């Protein structure tokens, strides 16, 4: 097998992508809801940095605009909305995970290794695009799924979904950077609308049951 030496750019992109993945693991571990939101903000910051890197190295001017927009929305507005929600509902602890910290870490590790190698084995790469970043992005998506499945409170589940979107964003930045700006912008505004909808339903749920736990949500069966 020929040894493939990544360029500096690809290296930087991979480092940022791995940082996003590590943040995802930290979110899985974090016991406080506020820390989830902070970690999400940090993760979004990493994604925005990745956008700047992609814009600089591939000379795509409109990606700078995207990076700015993604910073404003995902690092400032979304965390602000969620923090305000948490202040209003006055709940600090995330719902207990269905598995212990160690077990959920192991599950997430196994899942991300699976995602990394499954996508790696597809040989989705070309001369200008690094294939490892796509593999890391799919690992982020899969760990986000683990987070959503294992956590039993609505805020953690919502944050899990938003971070899933971060994972998809990395994939989008690295393998579809040329996607027209209009479309990328629409994706982001769509996320904003989704955040509002999640927020409304979380409020309604809290208003009815005085809790953020999903344990109450088990009436509909069959």
């Amino acid at each position: 097998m020929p040894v493939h030496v990544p360029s500096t750019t690809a290296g930087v992109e991979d480092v940022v992508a791995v940082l996003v993945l590590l943040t995802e693991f930290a979110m899985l571990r974090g016991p406080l809801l506020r820390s989830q939101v902070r970690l999400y903000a940090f993760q979004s910051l990493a994604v925005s940095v990745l956008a700047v890197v992609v814009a600089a190295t591939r000379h795509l001017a409109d990606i700078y605009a995207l990076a700015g927009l993604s910073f404003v929305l995902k690092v400032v507005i979304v965390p602000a909305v969620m923090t305000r929600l948490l202040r209003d509902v006055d709940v600090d602890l995330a719902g207990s995970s269905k598995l212990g910290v160690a077990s959920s870490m192991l599950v997430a590790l196994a899942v991300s290794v699976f995602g990394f190698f499954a996508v790696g084995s597809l040989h989705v790469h070309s001369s200008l695009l690094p294939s490892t970043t796509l593999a890391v992005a799919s690992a982020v998506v899969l760990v986000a799924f683990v987070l959503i499945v294992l956590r039993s409170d609505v805020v953690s589940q919502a944050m899990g979904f938003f971070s899933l979107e971060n994972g998809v964003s990395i994939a989008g930045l690295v393998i579809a950077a040329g996607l027209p700006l209009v479309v990328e912008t629409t994706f982001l505004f769509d996320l904003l609308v989704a955040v509002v909808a999640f927020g409304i339903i979380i409020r309604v749920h809290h208003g009815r049951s005085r809790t953020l736990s999903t344990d109450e949500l088990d009436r509909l069966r069959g």
Partner: protein
Amino acid sequence: MAALLVVLLAFPFAVGVVSYLVPVRVSKVLAPVSGAVAFALSIALVPAVLTHGHITAGSELRVDSLSVVFLIATSFLYLATAIFSAGYLHLDSGPAGARYGRRFYAGLNVFCWAMLAAPLVSGLALLWVAIEVTTVVSALLVAIDDTETATEAAWKYVLIASMGLGISLLATIVLYYAGTSVFGAGYDLSYAKMLAAGHHLPPEVLRLAFVLAVLGYGTKMGLVPVHTWLPDAHSEAPTPVSALLSGALLATSFYAILRYYQITAAAIGSVFPRNVLLVFGLASLLLAALYLLRQRDIKRMLAYSSIEHMGVLAIGVSFGVTLAFIGVLLHVLAHAAAKGTAFFGAGSVVRKFGTKDMALVRGGVGALPWSGSMLVAAVLALSAMPPFGLFRSEFLIVSGGLSDPRYAVAAVLVVLVTLAFVGLGWSTTQTMLTTGPADAALAAAPHATPHTPHAPHAPHAPHAAVVSSRVRKGEVSPWIVLAMALGIAALVLLGVHLPADLSRLLDHAAHELRTP
């Protein structure tokens, strides 16, 4: 012609915004008007796409025969649901009722707008955006009743559907990546362009994109095993929303899958995408048929019937022959009419008897002579009985399947559809065609309600008598009857005498799907 597309895109949204601002009695009129305009415009597009093949407006809007089929299905249901809502909503006269009405009508119109936008746009990325907007708006509509179960259903719906759409966003990006090998780094991701690229696209990447798309959009379409939000959302949403979710939203997601099917089939041949759809389709049909046998909640029953029909659609595409494609597209139209009508009937029953539990409802047709009978007819239509449209469409699908070397699948399809018919038919006839409160003597002595000793829910029969005895004969609202009559008329028209232009439209669209 291009102007038609712009009006179709702009009008329902404008009505949605206006509905939030004006009093509810104005919205009650505006919504059916908007539905009628959308339906008329969709019909007006038919001759144009038949002569020109496709119509474009700018670079973002493009319709061909396939899109028009879905536009007709959605706009018809928009019209019928708007009429039904006028009779179904009972609002308090206070400010809370007015607020509910404003939110409901704004949501209803914007929801329909997003579902109409999906087949209108040419870009696959914008298609994703339109479908994501349908999720957000309809999740809020599911939660609008503000009960514990509605909140639960809305949460499951918004979370699971958004996760599915995350997957389909990944599919969009992977497909975009596939195109970069042909079009270079920056281009517009439109389905027409991807179809033209054909077999120049890298096969491995396309396989990945297709599977992700089926998994992602399949979540919203209700394919097993990613269907779990569907029965909850359909049963807890206000009935007009349930009808739209089932008849139009699932079809819209199916439209997205069909576009990915087209592109994948053009690039790597149809064997792989057909096999993927076959697996999902069979799983959906099997699970739905089994669940239908033991449903007591009338709206959940109809929800599982939707999963069944989505399974039929997926299997129909997996046959891959023109005849089956025509059947599939006719099935989309007929299912919209039949499921809408059935949900309207269920809404009428729920309003009348105050319960969704079919074990507690007896003598439905006696109490609701018009909407009750039409509910029975709609359920028969859903079971693919002649003379309704679904009979014709399932017949075409099965005939297409029998011409395939894998005709065993067609046989399994027939068996499972029959099983579903038993479940649907048994529950409905037990509920609707039994004697009930309409008999004066029984109304006087409720506990004497006769029930066969083998009745499946015999322990609940006394309650059934109690609930039913409080019910008087008479329709809930003439608007409900009108909406249902529209649906039944459409079903009979599709089944007995398919209009010539519509038949040509289905033919055209089926051939678009057949592109090698």
